[in-house]
């Protein structure tokens, strides 16, 4: 167990943006909520997964809906509490701790704000190790953990308890309800026992985010480029360096889909990188050759500052470094690839691990 104060929150927010792989929502709101909660209630207890009793009830917390709504209709902090109380009452058992289901983006910070307010500990783990757009895209799902019973709560004090036959149905119904409830709700979801967390979660992800954030900030202070330090922490590699020359976006089925074209600079001179995104970056190709694909992580960094750039923040002329990072091994299983691999997102190609794609390039 250790304590997370304001400094740690600042670092985690930067790491969360990086693992957001271009999506996941700007962690800024979540950061301010966590900072205000720490100011009012004191620091947060962070538990290593191994410290959690096997039979303890663990309930992850997350927002569902459009990040654009949340940056305008900021939560009041009671939504997540209401969802927790409601689920606790339904299950007839006290919740021992919370955790994020999604390390990337805003959902990494919101459980911290909740934990500070309720005085609950947070487990140093999540269900994605990155950001993904749908509820069933968590490692808990791969292990057969049900998303329900789950509770959705809005700021108007509406609450909805869902029991569905599987997580895909939970995603469908919750998504529709979210729109009616105002486009952004808080969830108490994937209730599970401590032993299940140990088995199915991606561990020590908040600590990783904190380290990433600390390195980026330290590099900034020392006027250094943090990219190498980031790669060291994440076993990642540079996929491409260049300048964004074209962005093509459209909304389809509620997703911000699109392609960014990046013209090569430095080692990539005379090459062209295409980044395909659906909220998150999912596929990177250089001159038609795949260099990284979901569920492996693709993140775009500002070449000068090393700060992550979201898909919305990408614009003509951005000088960027595209990095690839291997996903958690849980995603590289048959079921993991079925749920989050390229074909699920409509790309007609097979998943190949980042390391192998890189080998292919070196052989050529």
């Amino acid at each position, binding site marked *: 167990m250790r304590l997370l104060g304001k400094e740690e929150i600042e670092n985690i927010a930067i790491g969360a943006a990086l693992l957001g792989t271009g999506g996941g929502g700007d962690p800024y709101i979540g950061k301010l909520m966590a900072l205000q909660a720490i100011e009012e209630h004191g620091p947060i207890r962070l538990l290593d997964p191994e410290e959690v009793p096997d039979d303890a009830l663990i309930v992850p917390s997350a927002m569902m809906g459009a990040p654009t*709504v949340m*940056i305008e*209709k900021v939560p009041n902090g009671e939504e997540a509490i209401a969802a927790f109380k409601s689920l606790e009452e339904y299950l007839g058992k006290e919740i021992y701790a919370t955790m994020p289901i999604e390390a990337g983006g805003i959902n990494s910070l919101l459980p911290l704000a909740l934990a500070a307010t309720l005085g609950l500990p947070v487990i140093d783990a999540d269900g994605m190790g990155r950001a993904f757009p749908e509820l069933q895209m968590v490692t808990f799902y791969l292990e057969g953990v049900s998303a329900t019973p789950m509770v959705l709560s809005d700021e108007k004090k509406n609450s909805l308890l869902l029991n569905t036959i599987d997580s895909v149905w939970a995603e469908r119904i919750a998504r529709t309800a979210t729109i009616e409830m105002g486009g952004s709700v808080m969830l108490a979801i994937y209730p599970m026992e401590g032993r299940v967390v140990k088995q199915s979660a991606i561990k020590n992800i908040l600590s990783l985010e904190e380290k990433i954030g600390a390195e980026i900030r330290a590099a900034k202070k020392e006027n250094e480029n943090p990219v190498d330090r980031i790669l060291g922490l994440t076993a990642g590699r540079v996929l491409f360096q260049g300048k964004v*020359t074209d962005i093509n976006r459209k909304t389809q089925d509620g997703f911000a889909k699109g392609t960014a074209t990046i*013209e090569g600079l430095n080692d990539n001179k005379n090459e062209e990188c295409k980044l395909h995104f659906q909220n998150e970056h999912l596929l990177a190709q250089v001159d038609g050759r795949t260099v990284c694909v979901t569920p492996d992580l693709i993140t775009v960094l500002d070449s000068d500052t090393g700060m992550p750039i979201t898909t919305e923040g990408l614009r003509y*002329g951005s000088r960027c470094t595209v990095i690839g990072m291997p996903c958690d091994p849980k995603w590289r299983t048959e079921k993991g690839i079925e749920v989050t691999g390229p074909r699920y997102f409509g790309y007609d190609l097979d998943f190949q691990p980042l390391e192998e794609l890189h080998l292919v390039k070196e052989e050529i």
Partner: protein
Amino acid sequence: MASYRIGIDVGGTHTDAVLLDEAYNVISEVKATTTEDVSSGIYQALKRVVAASGVPVEQIHYAMLGTTHCTNAIVERKRLNKVAAIRIGAPATTAIKPLVGVPDDLRSILGKHLYIVRGGNEFDGREIVPLDEERIREIAEELKGQVDSIAITSVFSPVSTQHETRAGEIVREVLGDEVAVSLSSEIGSVGLLERENATILNAAIVDVATSTANGFIKALEQEGIHADIFFGQNDGTLMSVEYTVKYPILTIACGPTNSLRGAAYLTDHPDALVVDVGGTTTDVGVLVASFPRQSSLAVEIGGVRTNFRMPDIASIGLGGGTIITLNEDGSFQIGPESVGYRLIEKGLVFGGDTLTTTDVAVALGIADLGDPSLVSHLDKEVLKKVYTKMVDMAEETIDKMKTSSDPVPVILVGGGSILFPTELKGASKVIKPENSGVANAIGSAISQVSGQIEKIFKTDELGREETLALAKKMAFDEAIQAGADPDDLVIVDLEEVPLSYLPGNATKIRVKAAGGLLSERKLTGAAPL
């Protein structure tokens, strides 16, 4: 009867003024020193430019001012209004109170009267809850005699202004016109905290703007000039005095914008990179269809995160007064310190004791200024290295702002533009227009009037084409309201950003229309513009 106009632009070092005829020919131009109070520098420049022109004052019909008064007030935390901030959004939004994340010193000045009231809208325009009008009235009563300016920010006011407008009405009913009211929907876009911050800052500088405007009107009157007065805003267009004192925050960063606009006009290049070399910094911006490219990132003003439009400018510490340090081992350092406006007493070629970038350019025969014999003793080889590095710095910044590796025209303006050569890497050509030293003041004088809207539309309802047509019409209406000639309007910017996880293909659309001024004189048929 001939018709003239004056453009004035206040920079960090110089206050520049130009007087143009109706065909925008430069009749006279002056550079005055920017003074600490800003205003006396403006009056100096005004007096001198009129005197130098020999134009009869009754033929000066327009006066445009781009000034730093408002920026300075925020950065220096001085002369700020006593403000109250009312956020309409409860039961939502209370997890982050107003001004959280704003630097403490500013928070202690502006955060004395903060309220969160029930109300606000959903992303699709529905009410979250009805507006608590009672509470707004109570707050207004409480604030009697306590504040002189109120910022009102309602959740999703960029989608529906209803609650914000109603709250403004109630506040005015109780407090009358003495208290200024700033509505967030007029200032920023989606993003509650950033828009709220910008609105609070706006409320805080209302008095500064009013006294600046009054001072300018008085100064003109003292010269016997009875002109229509406009202020430059940071998107390269003008606003009336009435609008300026309501929305003074829009004047922030109008300086770099004016340079860009002036450069476009002077060279007839609507798409180009503009390098504005001042005394202390070099600012590089991008012209797209004669307007500055806007920054897509949250912009900090005085340490406060805001989200209103700002020109996208890359700035480096390299200007005409930048100090060069030569070390004994042959190495050197360029800036970032600068002698600024004191170049003419400190620079070596002017008989001073400090080696500056200007001295380097003169010694190498690139610029012809001051007394070259005063720098002839310096080691040319070392100076060449310094100069190469200076050019490198500029070229690197140019490259960063480009949208592709294709060479683009580069326009050099500003007093320090004499430092740079006529060839630069990445430039298809380098243009140094005549009067480039006062491009900013010219930009101020020739500005157009614009209207901009930024809203979330559900494109499924009307279809994309009709939605865009509606958005354009709204922008036109805004521009006409701001004083533009309806017959002269064009769309100068259009951006669609689809929003994820929302139904109906919700899309954020930003449209800007701009056109020439519809003058009082045109209306009365007295003198065509």
